[in-house]
């Protein structure tokens, strides 16, 4: 028996030594580190900051939407109370700024009309080929669920948008690519989209790249996870219910099993 124990200890030691090598390899092999930010929507109780989502929408619309589609969202979503919570009037105005192709009409012709809240967000390009042709061969991905489609989510988007720097000397930057500390391989086809002051803010928030990046990351988190506030709210109720229920079940279990202990007691006495 001592032999087996010795063998096990020896085996575990044999594991521990290359184990540290494994850990080192894992730390190096997984691309750029993404710094975690503080978000208003962090679990368990967090919700969206409506002002931040409204600002984020402006940044998205003025900057991102020039190249990126967002096909899963409709203008009506912008009025959601657990989202940007724009007023119905404001949503109508925002929707009407887009020209939407509708039809066919009675004569079989397609026609253009101002957007309505029920319309899906207008895509900047008619198809992927048109998008590639306009972007040096690169396809700007749809942003609807982007905050869930990359490890790190909103932290990654923030890191990407603030990660444009001059390439370090000796870095082999491909023609038409831009150096970015957050992107896999450190070069992306997307040029730095944000400059201080490029989008006017009306609520007193400073129009800086850092604020733009933060606000649009939060906005993209909402587009990816529009039911997050509802989820957190119901989650709290469910957890409280289950905790109370667990206590009741535990006490009931003890009460029921006490009968058995009483029986054993009368037996052995």
């Amino acid at each position, binding site marked *: 028996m001592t032999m087996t124990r010795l063998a096990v200890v020896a085996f575990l030691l044999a594991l521990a030594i290359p184990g540290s090598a494994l850990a080192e390899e894992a730390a190096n092999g997984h691309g750029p580190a993404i710094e975690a930010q503080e978000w208003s929507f962090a679990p368990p109780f967090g919700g969206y900051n409506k002002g931040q989502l409204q600002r984020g929408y402006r940044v998205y619309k003025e900057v991102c939407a020039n190249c990126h589609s967002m096909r899963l969202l409709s203008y009506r979503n912008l009025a959601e109370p657990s989202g940007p919570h724009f007023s119905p009037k404001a949503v109508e105005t925002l929707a009407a700024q887009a020209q939407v192709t509708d039809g066919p009409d009675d004569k079989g012709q397609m026609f253009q009309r101002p957007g309505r809240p029920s319309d899906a967000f207008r895509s900047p390009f008619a198809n992927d080929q048109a998008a590639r042709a306009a972007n040096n061969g690169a396809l700007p991905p749809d942003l609807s*669920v982007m905050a869930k489609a990359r490890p790190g989510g909103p932290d990654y988007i923030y890191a990407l948008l603030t990660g444009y720097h001059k390439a370090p000397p000796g870095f082999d930057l491909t023609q038409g690519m831009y150096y970015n500390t957050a992107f896999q391989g450190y070069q992306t086809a997307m040029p730095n989209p944000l400059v201080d002051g490029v989008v006017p803010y009306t609520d007193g928030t400073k129009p800086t790249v850092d604020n733009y990046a933060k606000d649009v990351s939060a906005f993209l988190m909402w587009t990816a996870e529009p039911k997050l506030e509802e989820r957190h709210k119901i989650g709290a109720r469910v957890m409280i219910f289950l905790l109370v229920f667990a206590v009741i079940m535990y006490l009931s279990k003890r009460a029921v099993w006490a009968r*058995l202990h009483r029986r054993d007691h009368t037996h052995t006495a």
Partner: protein
Amino acid sequence: MAHPSTYQPASGIEKWLDARLPFPRVMHDQFLVFPTPRNLNYWWTFGGILTFMLAVQIATGIVLAMHYVPTAEGAFDSVEKIMRDVNWGWLLRYSHAVGASMFFLAVYIHSFRGLYYGSYKAPREVLWILGVVILLLMIATAFMGYSLVWGQMSFWAVTVITNLFSSLDSLIPGLGTTLVEWIWGGFAVGGPTLNRLYALHYLFPFVIAGVVILHIWALHVPGNNNPTGIDVKTERDVIPFHPYYTIKDGFALVLFLLLFAALLFYAPNLLGHADNYIPANPLQTPPHIVPEWYFLPFYAILRAIPNKLFGVIGLLGSIGILVFIPWLDTSRIRSTSYRPIYKWFFWLFVVTCLALGYLGSQAPDGWYLFFGRVFTIYYFAFFLLIMPIVGLIERPKKLPGSITQSVLGPEASRPAGTPAAPSEPVREGVA
């Protein structure tokens, strides 16, 4: 466990039904008063938890199927539509996705419990084998369900796994390719593949439910095993299932639901993969194709073996071998608690499964591949060498005289001839 029926039809309609379809009698004898060993610990509560999880998956799945579009063009967006526009759709879909993980967590604990306490040994071999069949069906169902999201990981997981059959080409040239194209319904993974995976994903849970009924039937013939592994000897060793185990299982279920709810409401995507929120793209392979966490140990075994065909055999064998455990284990006693040598090998096997899980998530090169191979060898050696050999050479610890003695101590054994009047199982809660 075979026991005389104690059902007394009370009303006229109960008597009428009892003579035609004695369903209330079966429920009374097999569920309410079923004699259950009095010493079952909390590891025994996972059977009930699994039954509950199967019901959750079927209930949420049926509603999700009402809104899901099983086409290559519509699948991804229909899932997002469920998340956005269907009432409570986000709750249904996250319950179903997180539920799959919780289902596997419970089934693995349940299986390791059976392995530790020797619940596969005679007379419970059929019960164990039916459990392996359920595990296989669960693996198939979960794999097909994951494909339905039709994200990048879905698509490429289907591509990788269905391509495994092409390894048969090395046996009979053309056989594998023909089989794979037959499975795909075309020359590549596409709409027809998705459609058939959807049809089978809807079918399999009901097959699982059927085998679960057989599993419970096979449990109720010999009755439960217990932590001592010794047989029930007297009526004092057993208690009625209700209320003792309904309340104990119920309490454990609520604790399990706390973990389920914490993941569901606060980290629903924690166990998923970000790449699966990118729509499937046949022209772009993700840098790392990784299955869901519950398949990682098997994936590590597949990749540890250099030859493709033998890799597939290893993958299938790692689950198939479980069928033969009742005959591979040569131990005279059931419970590992009383097996001083085997105990070490058992826990090393648990470590092996966890290590294979970690290695399955990493790229198979360098040290990862080396350790993948070491643990794969141990995985099979545990069943093929350690189980037969240790059972023969080991001298078990002294077993308690009875289940009751294991709970109350040796003084609980009354001298022969003591009146046994109150020794029948307590039934206060049943009346």
